[in-house]
């Protein structure tokens, strides 16, 4: 179950980030436009440089890899019929997800997925995880690892996958917001 990572080697994003911090891929321009066009492009890109030196960018790939490893082991254990080990790996996933939520400055898409995973697992209230749950969790984590800067729209698709697998993603206490719809 190999997982491609946008943080790890291979992706254009990570190459760009490591080779030229803060720059996007060079734009192809006509020779006669160099001097005016290039200068303005640099100035524009300076305005939109993501800060790749931030803590969450350093820690997020590491945490995502850990979480994928744990979910992968849980899937394998479940396939072997070892439910207790599968559940234990899933339990160990929870503190990793909590720290991953501290990396949500990567974007709302990232935040939506991690928030959903945290509540999806918490709302089991200790009940042993099922194969369909852990498979969905692993699949969603793999998707985020390959595209951590995903849009909110794509993130919602992933969250809906978790719901379809039977996980309840609603934060405890969230009825404070839904109450007015009842009355």
């Amino acid at each position, binding site marked *: 179950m190999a997982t491609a990572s946008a943080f790890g080697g291979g992706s254009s994003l990570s190459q760009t980030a490591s080779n030229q911090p803060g720059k996007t891929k060079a734009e192809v321009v006509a020779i006669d436009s160099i001097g005016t066009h290039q200068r303005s492009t640099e100035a524009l890109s300076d305005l939109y440089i993501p800060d790749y030196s931030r803590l969450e960018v350093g820690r997020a790939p590491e945490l995502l890899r850990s979480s994928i490893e744990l979910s992968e082991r849980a899937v394998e254990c479940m396939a072997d019929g070892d439910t207790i080990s599968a559940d234990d790996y899933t339990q160990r996933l929870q503190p990793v997800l909590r720290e991953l939520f*501290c990396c949500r400055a990567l974007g709302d898409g990232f935040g939506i997925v991690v*928030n959903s995973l945290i509540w999806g697992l918490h709302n089991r209230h200790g009940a042993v995880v099922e194969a369909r749950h852990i498979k969905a969790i692993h699949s969603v984590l793999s998707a985020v690892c390959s595209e951590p800067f995903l849009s*909110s729209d794509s993130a919602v698709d992933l969250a*809906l996958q978790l719901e379809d697998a039977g996980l*309840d*993603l609603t*934060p405890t*206490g969230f009825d404070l*917001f839904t109450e007015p719809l009842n009355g």
Partner: protein
Amino acid sequence: MAKAFIETTILANILLKPGDIACRNKAALAKYETSSMPTYAIKELKAGALAYYVWTYNKLVVTDSLANTLLAIRSVMSFQPYRASTAIEALASAMQPLIVSSELQTQYGKIADPQQVIFDSCRLMLKKLIIGAWKRRRLICDSVLFPIGCFRESGPKEVDGLFELEERRCKPQTECELGLLLKKDPKALVRLKGVVDTQPQKRENSRRSKALRELIRNPKRPCTETMCRDLGDVIFAFLAPIDATVLTTNLRDIQPLVAALGKKASSPD
């Protein structure tokens, strides 16, 4: 073959309510072999529950404060079970699964602060619900019936960090399309008005009765968007297929209406 005809309360519960309520409603729907709903349910969802969630989300973003958002919610609620400060304490206690150790709080700074974590968890869940509800609005049943040409089914858009939900009302060029449909069966309208006039005196019932009276007495006058909106429950009773059961949480109001037309209604509980 058991057929369900979904009313807006069920659509909103499945798409926007917390897990247990959504599950109960989905389970009730799953008992039917086929299901359908009118486009009118989507129109009501957009102008009602979804608009409320969009308002709440934007209030969170604009105030950047859970306390102020909860105060704003309470100011528009008809009942106030507890004070905003008590609500925040309850929320903080419920949100413990999100809180990281003090070491990590120091390491990550403000983003790991419990208040900020709780705020963002609520904000992101609202965002997920708004986007997800709109994505799935047509997927919870087998078919969506009675398209409304004057209703533009445009969804929420995020602009500058806030959601915009435009065109909540229809814009009929000459007359509301549903109004034209209703006028084809004046006898049914008379029966429905008879029921509405016996229902408890509330503002929505008096508006509904007025709209029905207008349709019955002046069929040549165009049915307006306001009349279409005021008709509400009557539309579901009228449009429901004769062999379907109207599935609703508002059985008290819907049941007598559908019964007047020889149809059935049921609630998930």
